[in-house]
């Protein structure tokens, strides 16, 4: 048993981290009242931008190319998410339809550009991130081996961002205002808050985080852009809902989903797990989310104004 956990955990964490950061992005957007099913497309923007940046830079700047790629991805995500923000905030578009359009656009546009650049539609990177032991901590008994050996630096980055996100949402003026915009934008406006500005920032943060998530997939385990993130963005959305729009809930949900994906992917290799058919493991997060939605239907923590368009001067 211990052996299996020890073997699985690094993979589970590697799967969890991009989901976590993407879902956190969704958290910002949705707590401000903007539905974000564009996470899938925004992740893909991250993979594409990251791949493009890293593959171009890695010959010139071998060490830092990966980090520059992550940065470029985050910025591109923020910029691309402006499309969603503009439609939802300024144009009162249906937020679900806008999200779908963004997803389709991201898929088509990135592949289009990738073909234009490489001719094949795929972009490979040679060097991703390598796993490293954390000095001192990795020497700790049990925990050291489990959590502090063979980790990606991005994992720690995301955990820092998790804490920062929680802090910002719960403890700062910006967080209070953002949550107010998601619950009752008219109340926020009457208190003199610029709902448009807050929602713009929130959507941009979600774009940044989701694209970072995509780029982390690229530099940790994927190694290439291939025109899709195969539902990881929707999985993050599921985690956001399953985690009931709370940072810690999201951490739990993404880890749960990450573990399930890991088990599904390696069950062929580890005999103890081969007994569980892959179909159950792969569909498990989605089924679980449906169950969670049913269970929480009476007391959902979803932001009240989620998906409602807000127009200044309208009652």
């Amino acid at each position, binding site marked *: 048993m211990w052996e299996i956990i020890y073997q699985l955990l690094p993979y589970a964490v590697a799967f969890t981290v991009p989901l976590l950061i993407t879902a956190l992005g969704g958290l910002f957007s949705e707590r401000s009242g903007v539905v974000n*099913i564009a996470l899938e497309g925004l992740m893909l923007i991250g993979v594409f931008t990251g791949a493009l940046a890293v593959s171009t830079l890695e010959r010139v700047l071998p060490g830092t190319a990966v980090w520059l790629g992550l940065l470029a991805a985050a910025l591109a995500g923020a910029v691309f998410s402006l499309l969603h923000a503009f439609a939802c905030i300024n144009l009162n578009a249906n937020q679900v339809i806008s999200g779908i359009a963004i997803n389709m656009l991201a898929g088509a546009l990135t592949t289009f550009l990738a073909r234009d650049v490489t001719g094949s539609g795929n972009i490979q990177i040679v060097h991703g991130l390598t796993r490293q032991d954390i000095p001192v901590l990795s020497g700790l008994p049990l925990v050291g081996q489990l959590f502090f050996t063979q980790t990606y630096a991005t994992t720690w980055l995301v955990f820092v961002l998790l804490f920062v996100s929680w802090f910002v949402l719960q403890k700062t003026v910006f967080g209070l205002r953002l949550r107010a915009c998601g619950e009752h934008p008219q109340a926020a406006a009457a208190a003199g808050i610029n709902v448009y500005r807050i929602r713009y920032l929130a959507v941009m943060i979600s774009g940044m985080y989701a694209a970072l998530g995509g780029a982390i997939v690229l530099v940790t385990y994927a190694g290439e852009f291939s025109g899709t993130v195969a539902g990881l963005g929707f999985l993050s959305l*599921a985690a956001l809902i399953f985690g009931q729009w709370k940072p810690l809930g999201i951490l739990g949900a993404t880890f749960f989903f990450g573990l399930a994906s890991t088990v599904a992917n390696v069950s062929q290799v580890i005999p103890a797990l081969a007994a569980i058919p892959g179909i159950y493991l792969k569909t498990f997060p989605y089924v679980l989310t449906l169950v969670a939605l049913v269970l929480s239907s009476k007391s959902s923590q979803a932001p009240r104004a989620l998906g409602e368009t807000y127009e200044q001067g309208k009652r």
Partner: protein
Amino acid sequence: MRLSKEYSLALAAVLMGLLAGAVLMLLTGNNPVNGYINLFRGGLMNVERIGNTLASATPLVFTGLSVAFAFKTGLFNIGAAGQMLIGGLCATAIGLTFEWPKALLLTAMIVVSLVGGGLWAALPGWLKARFNVHEVVATIMMNWIAYWTVFYVVPRYLKGPFLETESARIPYGASLRAVWLTEMFDGSYINLGLFLAAFFALLAALLLDRTTLGFELKAVGFNRHAAEAAGINVSRSIIVSMTIAGALAGVAGVTFYAGYASNIQIGVLPVQGFDGIAVSLLGANTPLGVAGAALFFGLLHTGKGFMSAMTRIPPEIADTIIATVIYFAAAGVLVERTWSKLKKYRGGR
């Protein structure tokens, strides 16, 4: 009056999509005029290609009708992709298993695709009616459950002799292709699904406009509270409406996997499911409009390969155009505002 406004909005969205495509062609150093000429030639230049355009449009009519039907009754069906996949899976399973006379086999395949797609959507409908679970989230989850179901079921039970990633080929006796039709269109993908599409479009229109069931579904769609207070069974209406929407998407599956194509592949959510949203938005949610919009997108999909062969423009330009169209269809206010500003500007002078 209102209808014409909806159609002009749709037209504006299409123009914006084509414009975005042109900009993209320019940015990548291509000639947009040349690009579009080849795109349209690829979809229209001979009977075979016209047949292919019609064949590409066929599943889009169904997914468009599916989304439009749900829309009309106040529900948002994002799950057409999953329903289509399940409909296709059920039909393929029947088609590969039995060796009945073609008419009987095709009827059976259509029926199971209706039932499969319908049930796949009935669950989110029930969750909405019973627990008030939002159908957008529920149908997204169902899409991925469908994706993984096909991913594991096809290689296990329906595998062909060679590839792990697709089912065996559907024999002619289980295909919607008909020799006379294929010959008439010079060997194109066109198939009997086209007639099914026309039939179902008519049926959906009749149902919505002429029947008490349609009256109920629309009442619930527009205002479920008033409908409930008037004695209409809201829960039943929601489930029925989702089931019908799902059934329509399910038939899209049979027309695609056993008509346009000849087997089902794993690891893909069919793009027609999402294009259906564009189709219904452009078609202003009316069956006739849906047919027109489906033809337009069918044309783009058919022409893109030819265009890409004749120019250096990657075929994804078509999908970019469609996505842009959806974006601007959703953001109809922009068009309206610009329009009224233009009018004001002119009036002011």
